[in-house]
């Protein structure tokens, strides 16, 4: 597997919105998450559940784009998810209150029912394939070595035609109620700017922005809401120019092996996973890391 770091260094050349987001939040968070590869043990359920949720909806989108009707596509999606979540001869058991096998099936069925008459139609690419689960690697025109330019990588759920414009789409899940200000967090937002940029460059589509389909997954129900975030050419250019600052910052930290904490970021977004570690004296942090986290390195170069 190709490493996202320049050979023999901790200098990252292949970036996705996740790793860039860690760096922007806090160099220490970036160090723990990206350089050392620590992930909270409790995050495993959320990750696997989220991956299945995306897979289910991706399969549904593909089947619909191939001409299958809603009912047939749903049956096939449920069958696939039932197989995927049947592990070692038994149903997958979750230790999470709402991210369960049953709620996964429910959430996917409810999503497809909710958006059954969706005016957003999947774009068919020039190669004839539906624009679904698009993994991308985009070379930038600068790098730290002549041989290896910086890369932007990631996955876009879908490109859709909506009301005369093309949009990328992204599906989010949350345990919280989706309040009217939920979508404010995406404007501005690192991931949505990156997705808009690459959609324009790689698929040569004049993408207006990103449609976000949010799902509140609760014990007894799943509730959906759709939001839009727009980017102008000027905003995208500005965001792209900012990349060189962040990439150079990361390279400088790596060269010095110095990863300062941004202690104004620790309590945002429900609190950083590493807050309890960083709150300890440096000599005991490793003990706390080993007890509450597992090593599961993140690699932006791995396609979904």
């Amino acid at each position: 597997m190709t490493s996202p770091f320049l050979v023999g260094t901790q200098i990252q050349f292949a970036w996705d919105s996740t790793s860039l987001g860690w760096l922007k939040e806090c160099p220490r968070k970036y160090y723990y998450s990206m350089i050392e590869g620590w992930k909270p043990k409790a995050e495993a359920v959320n990750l696997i559940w989220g991956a299945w949720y995306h897979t289910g909806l991706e399969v549904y989108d593909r089947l619909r784009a191939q001409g299958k009707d809603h009912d047939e596509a749903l049956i096939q999606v449920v069958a696939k998810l039932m197989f995927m979540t049947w592990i070692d001869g038994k149903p997958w058991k979750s230790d999470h209150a709402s991210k369960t096998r049953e709620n996964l099936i429910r959430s996917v069925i409810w999503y497809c029912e909710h958006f059954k008459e969706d005016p957003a139609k999947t774009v068919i690419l020039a190669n004839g394939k539906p624009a679904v689960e698009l993994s991308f690697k985009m070379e930038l025109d600068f790098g730290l070595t002549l041989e290896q330019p910086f890369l932007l990588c990631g996955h876009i759920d879908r490109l859709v035609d909506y009301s005369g414009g093309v949009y990328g789409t992204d599906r989010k899940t949350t345990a919280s109620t989706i309040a009217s200000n939920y979508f404010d967090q995406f404007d501005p937002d690192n991931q949505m700017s990156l997705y808009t940029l690459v959609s324009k460059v790689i698929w040569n589509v004049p993408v207006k922005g990103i449609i976000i389909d949010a799902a509140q997954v609760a014990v007894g129900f799943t509730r959906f809401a759709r939001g839009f975030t727009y980017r102008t050419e000027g905003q995208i250019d500005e965001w792209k120019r900012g990349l060189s600052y962040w990439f150079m910052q990361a390279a400088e930290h790596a060269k010095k092996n110095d990863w300062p904490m941004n202690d104004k970021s620790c309590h945002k977004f429900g609190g950083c996973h590493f807050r309890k570690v960083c709150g300890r004296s440096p000599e005991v942090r490793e003990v706390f890391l080993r007890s509450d986290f597992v090593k599961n390195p993140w690699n932006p170069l791995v396609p979904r």
Partner: protein
Amino acid sequence: MSDIQTLFNEDPLNLTRENYVEIVNYYRHARQQFVLGDKKAGKAPKAPTEKLNLDDILSDL
């Protein structure tokens, strides 16, 4: 009609197309119930109304 939990505990290899249809229909029905409840919950309850008697009001003045 199978119990939904029985279907979830069954090896998917043993499930028939009809079983998958049952699962879809089960959650489809659950969603309809939820949407119905959500709509009802969204409506503000009617305030109780009481006919006013002008004589009673004027007698208090």
